[in-house]
């Protein structure tokens, strides 16, 4: 009887019984090691393709796993000493700018001009641009009494008193370097160890500086 005329039922019952199906395949499993016709060719091709693929895959793996590191690879750019120096200063200044914005700008303003009659300007101020020790000392201990900045007198009401809040040497170095180079100021930077030595020099001092004390410490800065 041709297949076309058989019903589903008939096709199904003309199929293999399950016990025969199991036995047949078990038998096939057992004879798999005996070389038979058509058996040899396929595995050879398989072994060849398999080998090629493993080869390609390992090359791909070696190229893409990035040494099993957590972070993606970054192009390592060899910086010249000059560039390194520029990058260091840039980072120092930007860190100083943040400290300034957080701690100083509320009085001295972000433009460094202060408030007339209340808070002295930092931009173009001889107190800032001459010796870096001046503002470092002021930041460390504070300042009271009257001072004259850029020809204007500033009063006693608001004393700088950063000392109340802990600030470390590197932060001071950063913020001092920033104010000495911002808003048209063009003085050289100050380093952490310099700050440390200034801190050590005035370690005994308990009260704030006065303007006169500062001027007497750095006479050449105020000579003009």
């Amino acid at each position, binding site marked *: 009887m041709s297949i076309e005329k058989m019903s589903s039922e008939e096709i199904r019952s003309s199929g293999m019984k399950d016990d025969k199906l199991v036995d047949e395949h078990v038998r096939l499993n057992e004879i798999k090691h005996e070389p038979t016709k058509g058996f040899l060719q396929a595995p050879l091709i398989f072994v060849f393709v398999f080998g090629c693929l493993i080869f390609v895959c390992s090359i791909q793996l070696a190229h893409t796993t990035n040494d099993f590191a*957590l*972070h*993606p690879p*970054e192009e390592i750019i060899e910086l010249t000493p000059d560039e390194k120096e520029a990058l260091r200063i840039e*980072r120092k200044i930007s*860190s100083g700018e*943040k*400290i300034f*914005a*957080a*701690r100083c*700008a*509320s*009085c001295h303003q972000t433009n460094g001009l202060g*408030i007339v009659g*209340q808070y002295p300007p930092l931009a173009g101020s001889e107190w800032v641009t001459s010796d870096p020790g001046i503002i470092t000392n002021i930041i460390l201990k504070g300042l009271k009494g009257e001072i004259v900045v850029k020809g204007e007198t500033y009063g006693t009401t608001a004393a700088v008193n950063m000392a109340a*809040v802990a600030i*470390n040497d*590197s*932060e001071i170095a950063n913020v001092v370097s920033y104010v000495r180079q911002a808003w048209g100021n063009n003085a050289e930077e100050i380093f952490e160890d310099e700050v440390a030595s200034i801190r050590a020099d005035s370690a005994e001092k308990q009260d704030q500086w006065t303007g006169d004390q500062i001027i007497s410490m750095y006479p050449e800065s105020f000579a003009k």
Partner: protein
Amino acid sequence: MNNIFKFAIYIFLTLAFAWLAFFVGAKNQYGDLEPTSQYLEENNSIPKGADLFPQSMPGVAQLGAKEYLSLGCVTCHTQQVRTIDAGFDVERGWGKRPSVPRDYILQKEVLLGHNRVGPDLANIGLRGYTREWLHKHLFNPQILVEGSICQPSPFLYDISNERSSGAINADNKADDNVSTIFIKPSLRANRIVSYLQSLKQDYELPEMSFIETQDEDDTEDIKLAEVGTAKDDQVGLPTWLADQIASGKEIYSKITPGGGMCVACHLPNGLGQPGAIPPLDRSDWVLGDKERLIKISIHGLMGEVVVNEEKYVGVMQGFGQPLGSPLNDQQIADVLTYIRNEWGNSVSAISPEEVKAVRDSEKDRELTAMWTEAELQKENSSD
């Protein structure tokens, strides 16, 4: 193969090996991953005082992440910028740099996604969309982007035909007078928008710096311009709220008499000083109980307080004091509304009436008697 137990063990091992590598192996690598500064010192240490990234999301945004998840947004939106070798994401302006594992280390629900029927959202907070724009897009994307297939979520909004305070014009017609659809965002909508605005990878990390694309014209910006969105953040606010915030900002930062002088201690960024002055930014005291906040601003606060699980010891003057220049109810309401809506904060405004009510209820208290934390807590629990 014929012994089921042996077979089961083999089957288990095939999975276990992959799991060991992908989970246990990767977990070890992730183990010591913590927020870090944008660049490191020469000896690979974090510079002192540097800000650490990624920063944790504000609380309201974390709630927004849950809403985002529950609505199924992740089905169409990814939150990852692929490396430049693997994709076009940076060129498309979806990020300043590829995302790295560290970016997600603080997120509770990491919703990377793997379908982009909609654009990537890893840096949606950087693309200059205002809150109003995002609300309108959530309400009905088609009025902003013609032809968008993003699903509208009108159920997140109160819809009315009349203009009212706090409502957003969500009609096709831009003119408020002609428009007939005004929407008021629900709490959930606000959370989702806060979450979206907090999604940004706008910092560099030691392992990944920004990538400069040749095409400087940001495509997303052009798109923004096309749909005519104003960039000013305050535009989306109703006038009364914008006024309150503007006036509050002035009081907050004014150090001359008549101002609040808040900025002197709490700083322009609202972060305060560790150990001495508590932060206002995402502070549980600022975002939490209004009454407590008003009480403190009138009478001041002294002694030890715990804010965001950190201890602070200090003294804060009250601004109801006769000394100096006391602030009136309106001014206190303004400055409190401002701090509740600045930085990462985004919660309800405080009205002068509320301040007055607190002032009246504490009439008998001497104006110089500062609160202590214990006292405030007692008051709260007795309520």
